[in-house]
């Protein structure tokens, strides 16, 4: 079982083309910075239990120190069953019951109104397939690793798994929910502020679980509608002969066996849809920014950059060919 060790070394070469990862896009992935009602309710609960927990911890430690250090006549009250029953039974029963009630109350607050947008997300080793659904459940747009939603709009995420168990998690917006083969989980939440929120797979799913991220971009409704309209339809035609050559090389190399570029013969369904790949924030499921350098590096060394993912390294392509393919892909906006 000799597998190549992954290495970020090639990234040094890519550094000239673009900064590592998504430094520019200012995304956040923190449960402590809630940007939606769901995460907000949990955040409130978090601080409440933190405060309560800290107080209880300090109180218990204080009792412990008192039990050890105080004069015995001052600790006499601590040496009977009443002390154990009071602190060990009565106090936790009261506290825990109140906490449970409060938690149930905040769970109820998480039930959001009827969704106005439905998006199906399928977890695959090691990326996210995204389907925007119409009222009848048919896909109106297929994309990958990036989900755009309108702000203040409850969105239903229909979560499925293609291969193994994954977990869908955008901490700034909501808690996680698993994607399980053979099951369909559904989750409604909303973003209350425009912004880019990073999500990451939260159930260990194999070799590259660590590099299986995505972005949720929340935008005002008008901006979102414009984006949706722009994303549908066929890919734009190459504007220069260089880009046209890139497309030809893309098709000749067999990339279309796994990838779709609408309006071209590329119709493979194994990998991400690349029709608008140039407009996305990230490549390889939240791992690199999208630019000519990263696209070329990824095409030639996918197995080196993210070993174990299903994309082969196209090491046979020469530099000029790679540059043309990358430029073509980058132009797909």
């Amino acid at each position: 079982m000799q597998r190549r060790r992954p290495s970020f070394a090639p990234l040094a070469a890519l550094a000239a083309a673009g900064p590592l990862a998504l430094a520019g896009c200012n995304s956040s992935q923190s449960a402590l910075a809630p940007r939606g009602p769901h995460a907000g309710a949990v955040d409130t609960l978090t601080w409440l239990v933190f405060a309560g927990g800290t107080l209880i911890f300090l109180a218990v430690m204080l009792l412990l120190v008192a039990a050890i250090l105080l004069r015995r006549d001052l600790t006499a009250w601590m040496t009977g069953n009443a002390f154990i029953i009071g602190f060990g039974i009565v106090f936790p029963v009261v506290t825990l019951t109140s906490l449970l009630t409060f938690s149930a109350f905040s769970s109820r607050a998480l039930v959001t109104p009827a969704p106005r947008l439905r998006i199906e997300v399928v977890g695959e080793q090691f990326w996210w397939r995204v389907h925007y659904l119409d009222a009848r459940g048919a896909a109106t747009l297929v994309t990958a690793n990036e989900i755009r939603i309108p702000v203040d709009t409850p969105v239903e995420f229909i979560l499925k798994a293609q291969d193994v168990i994954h977990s869908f998690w955008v901490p700034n917006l909501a808690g996680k929910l698993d994607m399980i083969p053979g099951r369909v989980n559904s989750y409604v939440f909303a973003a209350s502020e425009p912004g880019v929120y990073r999500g990451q797979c939260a159930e260990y799913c194999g070799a590259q679980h660590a590099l299986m991220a995505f972005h949720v971009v929340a935008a005002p409704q008008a901006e979102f509608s414009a984006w949706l309209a722009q994303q549908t339809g066929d890919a734009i035609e190459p504007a220069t002969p260089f880009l046209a050559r890139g497309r030809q090389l893309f098709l000749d190399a067999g990339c279309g066996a796994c990838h779709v570029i609408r309006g071209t013969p590329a119709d493979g369904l194994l990998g991400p849809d690349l029709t608008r790949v140039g407009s996305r924030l990230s490549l390889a499921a939240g791992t690199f920014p999208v630019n000519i350098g990263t696209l070329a590096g990824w095409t030639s060394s996918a197995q080196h950059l993210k070993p174990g993912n299903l994309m082969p390294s196209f090491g046979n392509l020469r530099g000029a060919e790679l540059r043309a393919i990358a430029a073509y892909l980058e132009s797909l906006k």
Partner: protein
Amino acid sequence: MTVTSDHDRRRHAGVAVPESFPNPVPRPAAELEVLRRAWEQPHGWRIFTAVNNTYVGIAYIGVALLMFLLAGVLAVLMRTQLAVPENTLIGHDLYNQLFTMHGTIMMFLFAVPMVEAIGIYLIPNMLAARDLPFPRLSAYAFWTYAVGSVVFFGTLFFGVAPTGGWFMYPPLTSYVYSPGVSADFWLLGIGYIEISAIAGAIEIIVGILKTRAPGMSLEKIPVYCWAMLVFALMIVFAFPAIILATLLLELERAFHWPFFIAAKGGDPLLWQHLFWFFGHPEVYVIFLPAAGIVSMIVPTMVQSPLVGYRLVVIALIATGFISFGLWVHHMYATGLPQLSLSFFSAASMAVAIPSGIQVFAWIATMASGRLQFNTASLFILGFLFIFVLGGLTGVMVALVPFDWQVHDTYFVVAHFHYVLIGGMVFPMFAAFYYWYPTASREALSERLGRWVFALIFIGVNMTFFPMHFTGLLGMPRRVYTYISEMGWGELNLVSTIGAYMIAAGVALFVIDLVRKFKFSFEENKGNIWNAGTLEWLSTGTYASRSIPIVRSREPLWDQPRLARDAKEGRYFLPGAPTGDREALITSPIEASPQSILQIPDEHWGPFAAGVCTAGFFYMLTLKVLPVAALFALLAIAAILWWVWDLDRGPVRGPAEIGAGLSVPVYVTGPASHVWWAMAVLMLVAGTLFTCVVFSYFFLWLVNPAWPPAGTELPHLGWPIAAGIAYAASSLVIAWSSRALTRAPRGSPWRMRLPLLLAMPLYAAGAAVQLMAQWQAGVGPQDSGYGAMVYLFASLQLLFGGVLIIMACYTLVRSALGMQDGIRRGTFDATMLFWHYSVGQGIVALVVVSLFPRAVG
């Protein structure tokens, strides 16, 4: 020095030291020599044959400690990789092996074996028993575990260590996404090593219930033994679930029986239910013995009895019960209905209460005496600090909405390390410092101990406290790297520095441990803490010279002369009436003497069987089937070899043990320890079978049609025929037993004929059960349904194989005149297991044949 506090004196004012002892002194000169010779321990290379609990216990502790160190090294490697973002030191494949092995080894090959090993070492001494009731079984459990663990760890060096994480969720771990043998190493390796946990549990249950010192009624059992009793019972009810889960996944991997494949009517969530039905109780399986340890050390360190003994015992039992109702709290994020989540959330919080009771009982005890500061008590204080903090974050993760955020993040990593390190590792270190003088001529160094404690305590908090925030800042667990923009670098670096501090502390501890270990039975350092319980009696290879009468919970405090009187042989059983190793069997509640148990001595069988069992499972993993079969035969032969000289029968008439009491040296039925062990074993088998039935109903629930469309149920005639054959086999055995009871000295054929008849009857039943499905056109690979019904049938075949071995063994002994109406322990064991297997078969037939008709 005896009793130190006024409180204590009041408490025990009513206890009087007996005016007269069971036996007069001086004892006959030859008596001690006979006792000593019976308990002579092996030397040199024959040490591999040792079965005595002290030897096995210390070796067991040693291997468990080795596993702790090895898994700790893996943790340090992982922390090194995560110290900085985008580190290229360790690749994803090795990292995934590291975290899988770290978790698996720490949980299965360190924590459970360590607490069990400490129990094997301490329990007989605490009860003033000479040994455990089944020493060869514990030796077998040890060798199985020792060989298995070392081989399992060795897979790392060949790059074939499992990568599925310690909870091995399918489908990732099934044949499609984990081809190769690495997952099989986990499933077969860990699956079978659990056999040793169960063997130890049987030993501990029977030991605590049946071999206590006279007078040690339930009220006077040391809290540690109560904890170990609950611990062992929890193993009995929890571990079959993981054994079944590993069996199902291995069947899926090896033969493509689709238990967990959704497309074929299986369900990946079935694994999670089975795994966590084991996995959550497992946490308390680890914690309860540690809590028991704390309840022993605190009273000694403050020289005052435990406050709230009854509350603590109730808390231990309550923890055992509640812990079986929590498993779903590992599955909050799987999309289960809100209502069931609320139930499990409430149960998860409720389990905090028994722990709270114990914490305040320990505080109350400290308040009633004066705490001596030494390394053991420092580790107890460290335990309280870390465990209480971990318990509070446990209440947090029990809250469903909060858990949705932190589940599978570093917050949870922080939480369970606080609970497990606080709840188990710190008490373990305290136990080492505290009980070390019972095994060694020297105590551990107090000067180094302060350093050990400081490094580990600060290190643990430095490693794991920041992880709460790393998790809330969005870092999932089980990632081999992270990109620098996430901003997790600083917190991770702090955690890594902390991990190195822990490593330094542990290294210092190990140096001291090795340096000071001067093993001795009779000249150990002894009761340097002035503890009150019986494990501190001065002992020889035979444990206590005579078995004392226990009149309180801290006999050494309340009967100052006890150690001397016991050593002089004034109490029960000062010699060896049969000339061999013996223990006193007492009644389970009041602990009054009932009989003398003949205890087996050293033997090569357990070692050979342990090595061959490991060989069998690992050869099976590597799919070298002929060699595997050879190892299986050798293992069975070795087991039969070691049991051959057991069940010795009434080698002499009732023996005088003192105080005019004359007790038999051979008993059968419910009075015998074998009967009790079989009862526990049947509980294990019954739990396993219940999990099979649960799995069947679970898959029924997730499938739209049952049996699936196009599949026929077998004609009712088949299961009826199978049921009749099963029942008939049981009836002839029952008839035999009655005939033997009525006329114990009648013809030996009243044992042999029924056994000869019962074997084909049972085999016919099992064959018909299997054939029924086959002729109905169902195959085990077709669907989850098919896999389930063949599982039921296969289980009956497997049990049938065991029954036939047992029956043939009984027949051979009968033919050689070693089994008859009086000496019938072997027959009784066979009979009990026979009735159980038949009952299980009939329930299986009802579930598989009648249930689908009833609902369909």
